[in-house]
């Protein structure tokens, strides 16, 4: 049965249904409803909720919970997401599954509490130290908040990695009709690697740390890291295709901006322009396979995102190979379908300037 739910609340409810039984976090707009919803509902459903003294403590509590095999999550936005980066790097090094939600807001530093897509680089390129990679899912609706959070927990466990869900203030704050999944039961004891006290198979105990640090496995380290990330890169790519069969101008957009782009593709088609769209669902791994198809016939890519200078556009250029790349960073406001239409027309007419 469908329900009308706010994006943040639906995400929080879906996390509980996915078996999440540990949440630690700190208030920050526009993600606070996730914290509030879980404060109210998680303890009643057998879970642990902790309001921590900082985002640092939040992510490090999640690390502890993840080490015991619990499905654990934290959420934040903007400045708070910056504080999570240290923990994300450690989660990667210890190969611990956990889900980190960033309900993006706008601007640099404190910026502003309004919606935005300013954290692409931080989420996708490794905001913490050391050069790790983390699967990043980008929902564009309340329903996808629900669907992707479920997927995020499954991916996190299957690959023993933290996973980022990159939502934004619009998706978090809007209410839409949503179908919730069946509740899943998660058994924290089902994996051998979780901390539970030493046993016959681990007579000196499990050592949950980076192997390069603990037993100086230098020669194994780099091949292991490379294999781990190339497996994820190959297996996890997800994207949505809109009108790609004969598209000459291919829009690339994710999250809230992609909803406007869908409308713009319709407007362009009505006017006879052959426009289509790739919507990356995973931002890392970026949907390379989609571009391998479109690179053969596309005349241009147009990257549309909600920040000042464009961030994802660099990946579009990277994967778009020799196809010209145009950029429409819509800044502090959601992209306007009419402006996108003008840009599409401009690209066809040769009046738009490419950025890559």
């Amino acid at each position: 049965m469908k329900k009308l739910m706010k994006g943040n609340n639906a995400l929080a409810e879906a996390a509980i249904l996915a078996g999440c039984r540990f949440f630690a976090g700190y208030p920050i707009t526009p993600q606070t409803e996730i914290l509030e919803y879980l404060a109210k509902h998680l303890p009643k459903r057998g879970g642990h909720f902790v309001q921590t003294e900082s985002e640092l403590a939040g992510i490090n509590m999640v690390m502890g919970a993840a080490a015991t095999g619990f499905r654990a999550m934290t959420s934040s936005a903007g400045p708070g997401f910056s504080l999570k980066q240290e923990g994300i790097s450690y989660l990667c090094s210890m190969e611990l599954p956990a889900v980190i939600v960033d309900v993006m807001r706008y601007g640099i530093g404190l910026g502003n509490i309004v919606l935005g897509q300013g954290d692409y680089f931080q989420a996708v390129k490794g905001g913490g130290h050391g050069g790790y990679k983390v699967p990043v899912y980008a929902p564009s609706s309340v329903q996808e908040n629900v669907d992707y959070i479920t997927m995020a927990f499954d991916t996190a466990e299957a690959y023993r990695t933290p996973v980022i869900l990159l939502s934004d203030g619009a998706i978090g704050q809007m209410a839409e009709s949503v179908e919730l999944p069946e509740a899943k039961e998660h058994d924290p004891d089902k994996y051998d690697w979780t901390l539970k006290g030493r046993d016959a198979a681990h007579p000196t105990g499990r050592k949950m740390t980076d192997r390069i640090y603990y037993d100086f496995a230098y020669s194994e380290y780099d091949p292991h890291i490379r294999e781990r990330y190339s497996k994820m890169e190959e297996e996890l790519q997800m994207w949505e295709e809109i009108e790609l069969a004969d598209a000459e101008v291919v829009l690339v957009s994710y999250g809230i901006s992609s909803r406007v782009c869908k409308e713009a593709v319709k407007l362009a088609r009505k006017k006879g322009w052959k426009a289509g769209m790739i919507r990356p669902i995973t931002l890392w791994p970026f949907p390379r396979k989609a571009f391998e198809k479109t690179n053969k016939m596309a005349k241009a890519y147009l990257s549309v995102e909600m920040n000042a200078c464009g961030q994802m556009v660099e990946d579009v250029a990277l994967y778009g190979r020799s196809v010209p790349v145009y950029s429409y960073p819509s800044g502090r406001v959601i992209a306007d379908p009419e402006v996108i239409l003008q840009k599409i027309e401009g690209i066809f007419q040769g009046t738009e300037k490419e950025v890559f």
Partner: protein
Amino acid sequence: MAAERKAPSTIYGVNSFCPGCGHGIVIRLIAEVVEEMGLAENAIGVLAVGCSCLTNRYLALDLMQAAHGRAAASAGAIKRCRPEKLIFTYQGDGDAASIGIAETLYSAQRNEGFTQIIVNNGVYGMTGGQMSPTTLVGQKTTTSVQGRDPEVMGMPLKISELISSFDVAYLARGSVHNAASIRKTKKYIQKAFETQMNQGGYTCVEVISPCPTNWHLTPLQAVDRIEKEVLAYYPLGEFCEGGVR
């Protein structure tokens, strides 16, 4: 007859701490208490960053190495998820009282149910002897080259006294500078672990420990310094209402 090294099953390998370092003694005490309480299969330790993390290779228990300063946060979560297990952290003073002071104090404030072991040797040991929160006034380190000057560097921090402002389940400060203090510290650790398992709540033992390498003293001079200088500022005993006893 060849001498036999007696060690609890919770200890393995040969530690690589510097001669005269207190870490080996504190780790041994934890190992003995865990073994004697019959909890070797039901204990999880959370290690800090710094010399304390070398413990990974000597303590035969399930162990996690936390981020620098964050051991208390991770341990609090582990205890919530596995309330039936004995959960402890093993941290230095730089980890628990400087970069991790928020995690330490808020664990005490929330009465998180694990035991925090804080080894206080007055310096950052692993990085080569920089000033730490507990470096004494006048003590020379690589970052307090003329000696700690309270006018610009502040007074040494008393983490246990700060923790004692919260209503915690058990709190004590011990030392490992002589046989009597080692025996007493073992009792404190045992009491903290028993309190955790029997009544619950936050428990903590701070342990004054020598670092001859970074104090630029011999092991004997180092324990002598603890007796004559360190204990005057950091008195030993169990904390209860009204101060140290």
